[in-house]
């Protein structure tokens, strides 16, 4: 106590100065709006900094516990995700109609793997033999044609994407019935070639190219793409047409596998003709 009094007496000048300055700053912060807001910003950043330093130190000691809790919570949440359930529905919905008989059934499926940048691109979907999917069934998306099933397993199927040079799909112009075939040339993933349109047909940029039933995989009229450029040299008998695919293969999630109920009958007939 005595030491304190001695200290105060010895430094009374400086202490008085400090008291006056504190009074002045108190007055400033209390009565001046711009300075007060500055002071609040300063004190807020200062104390939040102190707080974050304190937090980052104390958090360190709890990291193990927090990690375990988070891992448990993650496992619990992951269990509840829709993707961790396997759809058990096998029978597609059909409508009984005595006047028209159903030709096409659509089996909804989800894309679980997809590539676009390889020379041959495949899509894996989460429906397989159990759901009635067979080889050579067509696959369509909300915007147009996706590809064709090449291999099936019990629960999954491998789909040869339209982005594959091996796949030729029979197609026609929407406004006329000139037909040709669409295939991908291995370049840009939004663009494909539409060939075998004869030179006397009328084709212009912006025409829609749709599927037809010649390839026995798709219903007719499913969009494939839009003509983006038409060229023909003087001596060619066919156009050289480029189309922009209507399906963005980078952005596909829900697809439908086309089941043609009359497919075997037609194939039998076609083989008999030969």
């Amino acid at each position, binding site marked *: 106590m005595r030491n304190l009094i001695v200290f105060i007496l010895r430094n009374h000048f*400086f202490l008085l100065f400090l008291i006056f300055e504190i*009074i*002045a700053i108190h007055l400033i912060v209390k009565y001046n709006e*711009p*300075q007060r807001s*500055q002071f609040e910003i300063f004190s807020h950043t200062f104390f939040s900094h102190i707080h974050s330093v304190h937090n980052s130190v104390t958090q360190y000691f709890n990291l193990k516990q927090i990690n375990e809790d988070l891992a448990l919570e993650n496992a619990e949440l992951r269990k509840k995700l829709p993707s961790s359930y396997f759809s058990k529905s096998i029978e597609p919905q059909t409508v009984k109609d005595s006047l028209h008989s159903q030709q096409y059934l659509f089996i909804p499926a989800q894309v679980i793997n997809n590539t676009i940048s390889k020379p041959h691109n495949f899509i894996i979907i989460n429906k397989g033999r159990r759901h009635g999917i067979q080889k050579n069934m067509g696959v369509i998306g909300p915007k147009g044609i996706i590809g064709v099933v090449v291999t099936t397993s019990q629960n999954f199927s491998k789909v040869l994407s339209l982005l594959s040079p091996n796949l030729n799909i029979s197609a026609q112009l929407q406004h006329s019935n000139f037909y040709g075939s669409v295939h991908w040339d291995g370049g840009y993933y939004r663009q494909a070639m539409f060939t075998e349109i004869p030179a006397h047909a009328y084709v212009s940029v912006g025409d829609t190219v749709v599927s037809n039933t010649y390839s026995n995989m798709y219903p007719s009229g499913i969009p494939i793409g839009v003509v983006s450029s038409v060229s023909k040299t003087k001596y060619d008998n066919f156009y050289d047409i480029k189309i922009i695919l209507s399906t963005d293969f980078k952005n596909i999630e829900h697809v439908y596998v086309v089941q043609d109920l009359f497919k075997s009958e037609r194939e039998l007939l076609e083989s008999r003709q030969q």
Partner: protein
Amino acid sequence: MIQIFQSTIFRFISIILLQILLFNNIILFNNTIPYIYILFILILPFEINKVLLLCLGFITGLLIDFSFVSYGVHTGATVLIAFLRPFILQYIEPRGGYLPNTQPLLKYYGLIWFFKYALSIVLIHHFMLFFLYTFSFEAFDIFLFRMIINSAITLFLIILSQYFIFRT
């Protein structure tokens, strides 16, 4: 002694009134007011009690603050120069020390000494004042520019006063 006391009271009242009534209304270069009132702290006698000096600085600043409705800004700056004045006087003490019966005026110690003295006090005061006005160093170049312009004007008027008012 009584004469010094009387003259100090007279200077206090006249300088404060001059600042409030005249110089508060002289706004140069659209934002610069000469803060001539620190002349009062500047020319207080050498042998004044340090505590009294601080109290006078506090009261002066508070009165000026009332006139500007900026409570605390001038008080903080004036208390700071009142606190630092003894150290500055000690630092720039001429050879042979301060003579008895003299005051820190230009006529006793010459222009060079008074200029050094006034410059250091004015710069410290204005720096603190502008800092307390803005309370941040965000636009530091503008801050420094305005501070130096204002200091120059205040310093000019203080030295001018030495030639015209405190000549005899």
